[in-house]
């Protein structure tokens, strides 16, 4: 798409990756964008680039506004290759000796990624540079959000925050701004992004939001490096990040399971009916082999209860379920209660192993779990229903 002027002399010059469906293990049914920004003035500034294979399109977007040689400084908010991959060709077009601003860790990372002799200018938090035309850039380090090098760039007088990977979404449509999109759809994509990328850094995000609040930055626009830009009401995404970073849960339960001959699935069904009867408002049964791990994680993020079911396969947990558990472990969800269940043929270790996995993630396990040999009978399904019921009541702080 052609560049768009998002504020006077500020352009979005990035590209749309309409067809990407898997972003290193994250399913992206709506594609994504690699946003980059060009500020025109006494000093022309380019903020971030795009994935390497889209660099020609970025250059053509820049050329629609100015000759790349006229760019005076480049800012790299984040070294991950979807934002820095275009740097070698961009710096060649802009001029190898032009200043490239980045955080201290960014300088280290850029050197390791590209081994180029660039004119790296390390900046630290709150550092400002004047770019003429009455405009100032301020840098805010956001270490480990979500790489050591991450930072924000803030265009002070305009109140525009270029927030790198924070507040983004993997979404590529023709829309540019929040007010051009259905808000619930936009927030869904933003939530999935948070659950799959930023969740482990929630404590840091809570701190950052507080610090940014105390700095009293006016935020007319929040411009992430992926997806839609927030201009109508950036407060919507800031409030959402506030809730997500506190890992606030809903009256919600997720029942994830795999099944071999439908027995564990029957158990899951009975557990679901127990959860519903206990008054849990959102119950989400998910067969792990039919859903993508990144969608499962989006559902888990704001659930109070996580029920995990697996048959025992050769004395182990089913592999497809371990995939989800390994993924979940790294994302560090907090403040949840969990219970395990599963059917088995001969020895049935899965429930014990699941308990260890769930405890290792810091979930509270008020029940020892439920295992049933072969095909559940009616009274055994009643036991499953009871387990769902008790977990549902606990989730709501009600008497069991």
């Amino acid at each position, binding site marked *: 798409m052609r560049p768009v002027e998002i504020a006077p002399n500020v352009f979005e010059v990035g590209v749309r990756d309409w067809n990407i469906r898997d972003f290193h293990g994250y399913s992206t049914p709506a594609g994504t964008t690699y946003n980059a920004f060009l500020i025109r003035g006494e000093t022309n500034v380019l903020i971030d680039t795009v994935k390497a294979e889209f660099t020609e399109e970025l250059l053509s977007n820049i050329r629609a506004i100015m000759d790349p040689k006229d760019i005076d400084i480049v800012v790299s908010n984040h070294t991950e290759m979807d934002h820095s991959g275009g740097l070698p060709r961009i710096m060649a077009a802009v001029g190898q000796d032009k200043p490239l601003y980045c955080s*201290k*860790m960014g300088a280290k990372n850029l050197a390791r990624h590209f081994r180029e002799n660039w004119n790296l200018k390390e900046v630290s938090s709150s550092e400002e540079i004047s770019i003429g035309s009455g405009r100032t850039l301020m840098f805010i380090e956001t270490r*480990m959000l979500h790489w050591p090098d991450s930072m924000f760039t803030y265009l002070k007088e305009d109140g525009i925050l270029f927030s790198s990977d924070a507040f983004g979404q993997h979404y590529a449509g023709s829309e540019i701004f929040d007010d051009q999109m259905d808000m619930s759809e936009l927030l869904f994509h933003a939530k999935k992004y948070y659950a799959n990328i930023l969740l482990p850094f929630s404590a*840091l995000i809570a701190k950052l939001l507080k610090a940014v609040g105390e700095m009293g930055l006016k935020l007319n626009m929040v411009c992430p490096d992926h997806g839609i830009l927030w201009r109508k009401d950036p407060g919507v995404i800031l409030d959402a990040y506030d809730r997500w970073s506190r890992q606030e849960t809903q009256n919600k339960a997720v029942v994830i399971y795999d099944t071999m001959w439908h027995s564990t699935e029957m158990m899951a069904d009975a557990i679901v009916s127990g959860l519903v009867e206990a008054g849990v408002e959102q119950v989400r049964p998910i067969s792990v082999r039919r859903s993508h791990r990144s969608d499962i994680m989006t559902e888990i993020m704001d659930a109070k209860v996580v029920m995990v079911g697996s048959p025992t396969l050769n004395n182990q947990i089913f592999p497809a379920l371990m995939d989800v558990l390994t993924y979940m472990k790294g994302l560090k969800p907090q403040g949840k209660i969990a219970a395990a269940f599963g059917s088995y043929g001969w020895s049935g270790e899965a429930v014990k192993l699941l308990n260890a996995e769930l405890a290792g993630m810091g979930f509270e396990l008020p029940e020892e779990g439920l295992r049933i040999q072969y095909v559940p009978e009616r009274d055994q399904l009643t036991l499953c229903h009871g387990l769902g019921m008790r977990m549902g009541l606990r989730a709501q702080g009600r008497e069991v």
Partner: protein
Amino acid sequence: MKYVCELCGWEYDPAEGDSEGGIAPGTAFADLPDDWTCPVCGAEKDQFSPA
């Protein structure tokens, strides 16, 4: 005693020190200079906790 970085998970092992930061093997965490930072993510010393 080993210390772990709360930001990125890197572990400081006194037996190994931190060659990048010029810290010799055998240096206890408490003896690290105040301006020493995590070699991986740049976190300050007070962001480490006992492993």
